[in-house]
């Protein structure tokens, strides 16, 4: 392993320590289970009841899975806010002065969100499967969790790029994540197919990991060939890697900017 790779891994680990500590401050097991998880289940139930009210059983399955995967989007996008926390706490200049690899640190710094998102989304999918007409074989269960994990992390990579932008306008962090979450809910196939919207919207949706994550999980639920599922999963990973690369470049640029003495990031 090269020296740079080792430095990146160290930065990720250091960032993850902060992530773990922040998460423990944010939630206890009681508030995560009794608060956040209940909220998540209510969100999926909210959209599912709309599906039941307006559609046929196939549409209900479409909406239940769409609403469940939106949980991993919403939770992973909490990264936008947590990316700015170092700035708000005044520790960002210390980070910029340290020899940390910026992209590596930020990849670890908010990792609590995609990990929590994987748990909440998986629980939501399997809980809602008890009430709605979703079918999984025993072999599907680990595949669902892996697909949710993949989608959460790919969305996390996208959220890191938005987080980098939020470092320049930290007051708008919650507005940014809310707008992106709602735009993804509307246009990326969560409640209506992507081709319901004009073709330009459909093309833009291809750059969003969860568009392909939704395809993968819906193919799996409908019993499609595993090759088809793997193709969509591959697209999730590919889009995620592109976002991660952009995030790494963005954080390096921001740190270089700060290290040159810019006051805008202090």
């Amino acid at each position, binding site marked *: 392993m090269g020296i740079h790779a080792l430095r990146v891994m160290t930065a990720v680990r250091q960032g993850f320590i902060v992530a773990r500590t922040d998460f423990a401050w*944010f*939630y*206890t097991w009681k*508030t995560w289970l*009794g*608060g*956040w998880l*209940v*909220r*998540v289940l*209510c*969100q999926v*139930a*909210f959209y599912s*009841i*709309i*599906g039941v*009210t*307006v*559609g046929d059983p196939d*549409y209900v399955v479409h*909406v239940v899975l769409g609403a469940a995967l939106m949980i991993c989007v919403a939770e992973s996008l909490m990264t936008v806010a947590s990316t700015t926390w170092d700035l708000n706490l005044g520790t960002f200049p210390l980070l910029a002065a340290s020899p940390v690899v910026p992209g590596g640190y930020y990849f670890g710094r908010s990792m609590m969100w995609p990990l929590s998102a994987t748990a909440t989304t998986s629980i939501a999918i399997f809980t809602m499967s008890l009430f709605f007409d979703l079918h999984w074989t025993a072999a599907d269960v680990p595949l669902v969790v892996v697909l949710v994990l993949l989608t959460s992390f790919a969305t996390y990579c996208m959220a890191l790029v938005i987080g980098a932008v939020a470092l320049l306008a930290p*007051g*708008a962090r*919650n*507005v940014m994540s*809310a*707008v992106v979450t*709602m*735009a993804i*809910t*509307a246009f990326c196939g969560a*409640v*209506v*197919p992507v081709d*319901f*919207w004009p073709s330009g919207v459909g093309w833009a949706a291809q750059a969003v990991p969860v568009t392909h994550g939704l395809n993968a999980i819906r193919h799996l639920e409908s019993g499609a060939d595993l090759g088809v599922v793997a193709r969509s999963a591959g697209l999730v990973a590919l889009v995620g890697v592109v976002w991660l690369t952009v995030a790494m470049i963005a954080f390096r640029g921001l740190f270089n900017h700060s290290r040159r003495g810019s006051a805008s990031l202090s």
Partner: protein
Amino acid sequence: MPGFGAGFEFQIVAMRGQADTYFSLITAPFFALVFMSIMEYSGRTDLNSHAVIAPMLITMWTAALSFSGEMISEDRENGRLESLIAAPMSFAMLLFGRLCACMLLALPSFLMSYLAAGSVFGYWLSFEQPLLFASALVLTAAATAATATALSAVFVIAPGARSVQNTLSFPVYLLGGVLVPVSQYPGWLEGLTRIVYLSWGADLLRAATTPGAELENTICYLVMLGLLGATAFALGRLFISRFLQRARALGALAKE
């Protein structure tokens, strides 16, 4: 109502520069697009009015949660709380006035939802019963502000409750039947939803904007909405009084 007007005026000025204002508003047109797309895609255009009304109710509740969370804490941190308590007015009414001003956000959110549905889907909501719409809107806004007054006191009495502040959104949207009328829920669940004021307000607002929709007893709905709002405000006054008593006894008005 000493304190109400001062709180109302103060909050209108304060909200202009607060990120929470824009956070509460920004999701309304997106929710309208999401709900309208569901109705159009599934061919249930008879429910389009539900899709336009719901984002406004969501904005009201989001604003209630966002602003109530830190209202008393900010007064404390900024050193205003002691002066406000000493002033010859009701602190609960001041808070209620501030939160009523926050409810004004319902108007631009409704406009954005209305325009999103009209410009994207060509659906322009009609006001079948304008008087009923106006009275239901005012009562729902007042009940939301009253509930937020109670919440603001809970958040300051039990700081631990702040950690579940962000989790109160969708459970209330669901139990309040902001999009799907609670009468379509299973019987046991409908009973539970009827203690949530939003379930009455949402039914009234939909009845006022849906052609051919009639509620069996409109007055009963208005009275229930008013009663639940008044109950929430009474609880808010009680919680605030308890908080102030404890803070005075401990000499902790300025800080914990």
